[in-house]
């Protein structure tokens, strides 16, 4: 079941790595090496080749595969073993991206860069300890929203000034323009029949 997740951005070496239980002792170095290697493998692949990469030794052997999807400048890479259905995981990535799109309201690359924690929280509702937890997008969004609401209510009046400051900070931000939205982020891959 073990699924690792990596999101990648071409622009910078931003990447995230959901904890893997596969390696008993895993230090940051191997983790970074895996990410670099994966990024290297995935980014040099052409547009119209298959979305699977066979596992090398680095990711845990022959039973493992890299399954990725490419949206504009973003790569979403999952590493799964043979107990998962390949096409199913492709669909899961689609659900993930659509969920991000809903939660961030037209997600763009910068949303993910600046709100890694939120991305993690959303992913935690889909994949838990390397196993698929939930595939229904509405259910995921309901749970994420409920938790965000709780967070807001806890912040209460104390949170208000902090939010204001953050808004002001963002206003001055030249690199946060609204128009980098990736319009085609939710395109469906034509040949993949709907899973549900």
């Amino acid at each position, binding site marked *: 079941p073990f699924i690792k997740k990596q999101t990648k951005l071409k622009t910078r070496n931003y990447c995230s790595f959901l904890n893997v*239980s596969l390696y008993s002792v895993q230090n*940051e170095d191997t983790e970074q090496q895996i990410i670099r290697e994966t990024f290297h493998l995935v980014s040099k692949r052409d547009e119209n080749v*298959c979305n699977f990469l066979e596992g090398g030794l680095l990711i845990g052997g022959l039973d493992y595969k890299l399954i990725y999807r490419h949206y504009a400048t973003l790569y979403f890479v999952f590493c799964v073993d043979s107990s998962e*259905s390949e096409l199913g995981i492709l669909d899961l990535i689609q659900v993930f991206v659509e969920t991000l799109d809903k939660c961030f309201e037209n997600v763009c690359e910068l949303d993910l860069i600046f709100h890694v924690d939120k991305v993690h929280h959303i992913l935690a509702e889909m994949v838990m300890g390397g196993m698929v937890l*939930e595939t229904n997008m509405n259910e995921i969004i309901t749970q994420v929203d409920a938790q965000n609401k709780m*967070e807001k209510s806890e912040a209460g009046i104390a949170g208000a*000034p902090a939010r204001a400051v953050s808004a002001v*900070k963002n206003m001055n931000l030249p690199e946060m323009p609204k128009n980098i939205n990736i319009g085609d982020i939710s395109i469906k891959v034509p040949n993949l*029949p709907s899973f549900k």
Partner: protein
Amino acid sequence: MALKIVKGSIDRMFDKNLQDLVRGIRNHKEDEAKYISTCIDEIKQELKQDNIAVKANAVCKLTYLQMLGYDVSWAAFNIVEVMSSSKFTYKRIGYLAASQCFHESTDVIMLTTNQIRKDLSSPNQYDTGVALTGLSCFVTPDLARDLANDIMTLMSHTKPYIRKKAVLIMYKVFLKYPESLRPAFPRLKEKLEDPDPGVQSAAVNVICELARRNPKNYLSLAPLFFKLMTSSTNNWVLIKIIKLFGALTPLEPRLGKKLIEPLTNLIHSTSAMSLLYECVNTVIAGQYWESVGNLCVQKLRILIEDSDQNLKYLGLLAMSKILKTHPKSVQSHKDLILQCLDDKDESIRLRALDLLYGMVSKKNLMEIVKKLMLHVDKAEGTTYRDELLTKIIDICSQSNYQYITNFEWYISILVELTRLEGTRHGHLIASQMLDVAIRVKAIRAFAVAQMATLLDNAHLLTGNTQRNGICEVLYAAAWICGEFSEHLENPMQTLEAMLRPKVATLPGHIQAVYVQNAAKLFATVLKGEEGNTDGTAAQEASQLMIDRLPLFVQSANLEVQERASCILQLVKYIQKLQQKDVEVAEEVNALFAGELNPVAPKAQKKVPVPEGLDLDAWINEPPSESESEDEQPKAIFAKEEPKHSRPRHTEVDEKELARRREARKQEQANNPFYIKASPSSQKVYQEAPGVEHIPVVQIDLNVPLKVPGLPMSDQYVKMEEERRQKERAEKKKKEKKKRKEKRSGRGKKHDSAPESEEDITPAHMVDIVTEEMPENALPSDDDERDPTDPHKALDIDLDKPLADSEKLPVRSHRAAESQKSPTDGETENATLQEPKKKSSKEKREKKKDKERDRKVYDIQGNLQDGSQVVVSVIFENKCNSFLKSMEFNVLDSLNSKLQRPEGSGPHDGLVVPFQLPPGVSNEARFVFTVQSIVMPQKLKGTLTFIVKNEDDSTHEKLDFKLHFTCTSYLITTPCYSDAFAKLLESGDLKSSSIRLEGVNMPFHHLLARICFHHHFSVVERIDSCASMYSRSIQGHHVCLLVKTTVSIDAKCDEPTLLGNVLDEIKQTFSQC
């Protein structure tokens, strides 16, 4: 107050938050490392503050830095602090950080047990949720053991959100703590039919994962899954189930027959490619190929021909599975697969290569390899080229070179492969060369000629040495030329080639082989010149050796140096003898006499143990246990009786050893925790065929042996064609003859029949020398499973009824089982009493037919308040009627009182906040105030409720007792050994001790059980004794010293409490 908070947050809001950090890093691309190190300094400052919000913010930033590859393990303790915040916002940040940064060796994990337990039982479902999510990432064996029961309780939570997470995390718990599998399995099975699809899917997920590794234990679930498969519409669940059946069918052929129909239906009807694909996969795994196999291959062909690369890839993947069982079905699609070899997508080419492996035959091997060689030339990336190379070798060498008809061709292919630049597989080619030359005797002469040419042209291979893995082939070449030097045309020339100065640039291990084999060649030269009256050639050879060897004597490599100096002295001596005209050739040759035969890799393992040798017997008795024990703990527990120290070397005679062995075997057989050895290890000895009679056939070759220069393998393809044609012609001639003879008898014609596999005779009648095995080798081909595989421990029979001794991972749970239909209301009190008395055992699995309602309760102390105890009760409605208006009431004692809402009288009941439809269970919590905790006590209570049937409803009541054991006031608290020692030395503690009679279980199970049932944690374990610690909710320290002799010494600052706890421990063990 509120103002203060606002003020505090205004101060804070100019602190750097995660967004600021990310922005900062992006703005400091040039001096990123410097910027981050200042950020880390800031974070360290922030972590020192008391404000939890500041800490949480700091931890949040650390999580991001960890992701970038910075080490943040120093902040582990701060992460734990943030995890234990009461606010969800911070808790979530803490758990996220923990899931990213913690791993098994993080030591602060042991501090989190209680925090996690508290979060798991939090009234807020999202607190529980984040705790489960976090735990799934960093669960350790200890955490799994301590929390297994709490998680099991959560599997019956009212919220499906919690249920599904709890079910899923159980898989992680099983992996870390296999003992929990059997007790938890019945409930897991129940969840397969949970009304919530998410929970159901999680349960299917977990069981499939378990079954994938140990399918045979899950066969009994097949009917249940069959039902799910035919009823479910969730594709995720269907795929999992179908995958599961793929693992089950090979074990149970009847299942296959039953599956054909639904599978065929799905294949025909589904629009989801993923589902179709998994169906095909399962068909492949099953034994019902005859009926649906063709349909599957058809569907796969459609996939492969699809323009979507993903489907093409999967189609090929499935084909390779078919290949293993039904090669014929795949071979008919050779055209398609060869076509895929030209695909621009590397993943697809690799898959096609895999398929080729199984498709070769004697007939098409040369053709396929020729095509692959073309690809080798064209291939760009070295990875793909290396892959091609290994595949070529795999294909040719498979099943003992079964498909090779012409070894000269194969040798020349190998030689051609050496021209690949930058390949990493030099050693692979080398080992093939060695293997073929050694095992195929007929080819040696040819191989030696080729290798001599290679050695001569070594400079071509070593163009840019070190990083070039190809020079490994020189190792093989040198060895072959030396070992089989009698076949050399011109040994002198080869000897010269091997002693060139350039050789010194080769890696050490190759030089060593060069030196050694130069000596062999030298011996051959001497032998060749023996008859000659004029001994100049022999003397030239000696001179050459003496001139060139000093270069190697200076080598930095020890092996090379040693061999070279040895041989140099030898040659010098020989030279002296030669000058005296002494004939030395025979003696020199005797140095290298004898043949080296290949040894099977498993040979060592299969040497039978000689009669009378017991590998398990001690050569010297290990130091007796008492020694280590005597020193340390005795100082702490003064009461300990002096031990008779045993003589260190007891003389143990044969009988005694045999007796002990027997006893140990007996103990293992009776021990349910001992994983028995697989039956294969008990295989009987069998006589293996000896090695002496390896048949070797000398044949004359009908192919010219001498090929000038490096041959082109293509020539062989042509030659082979010609040879086969010639053979066919001869055969025809023969047949014609026969026919002429039999003309009168039969008139049938044969000659137009196509050439079949059997018709192809190999060019060389080759006998392949088998690998040597020791005499009396044990024949067993099983590949042992990796002992480190965590799934091995989960190979547990789940159908056996749960033995009492196995129900261990439950802490202080009692089932108040009762039934109160008016008819047997009288007897009920009696039946209730009985199970109570031995109630320290979990009785959750026990079910009575007549029971209406059943409760399981768990008493847990509350750390925050030393006088509060929370009792959580699971109500389960086991009757067919609806239960409502439940009221829970307890008769308060002086010491313990049920906390009731303000304004209610001391005898009012508490309303249970839910109703129970038939078959449903739910959990409620009640808080009790307890004054003294040193004595156990029982509280009587009643539950009143209304049973609602279709037409009437009755008011009923159920009596129960709550047993507050002293154990339930103890809270697992980790303690470091130094603190523990200090505590014992302080002298405030009173001591007491007990012996446990009739307990025979492994020591670690004993410890685990005390941890579970009585909330202790192990402080330290030294061989045969362990110290354990726990704390009561009112802060009493309880220390135990448990010994393998099953005695427990204990110390506590409250003697009454201690006495009661020990009694309870004793009771626990008296019941197992």
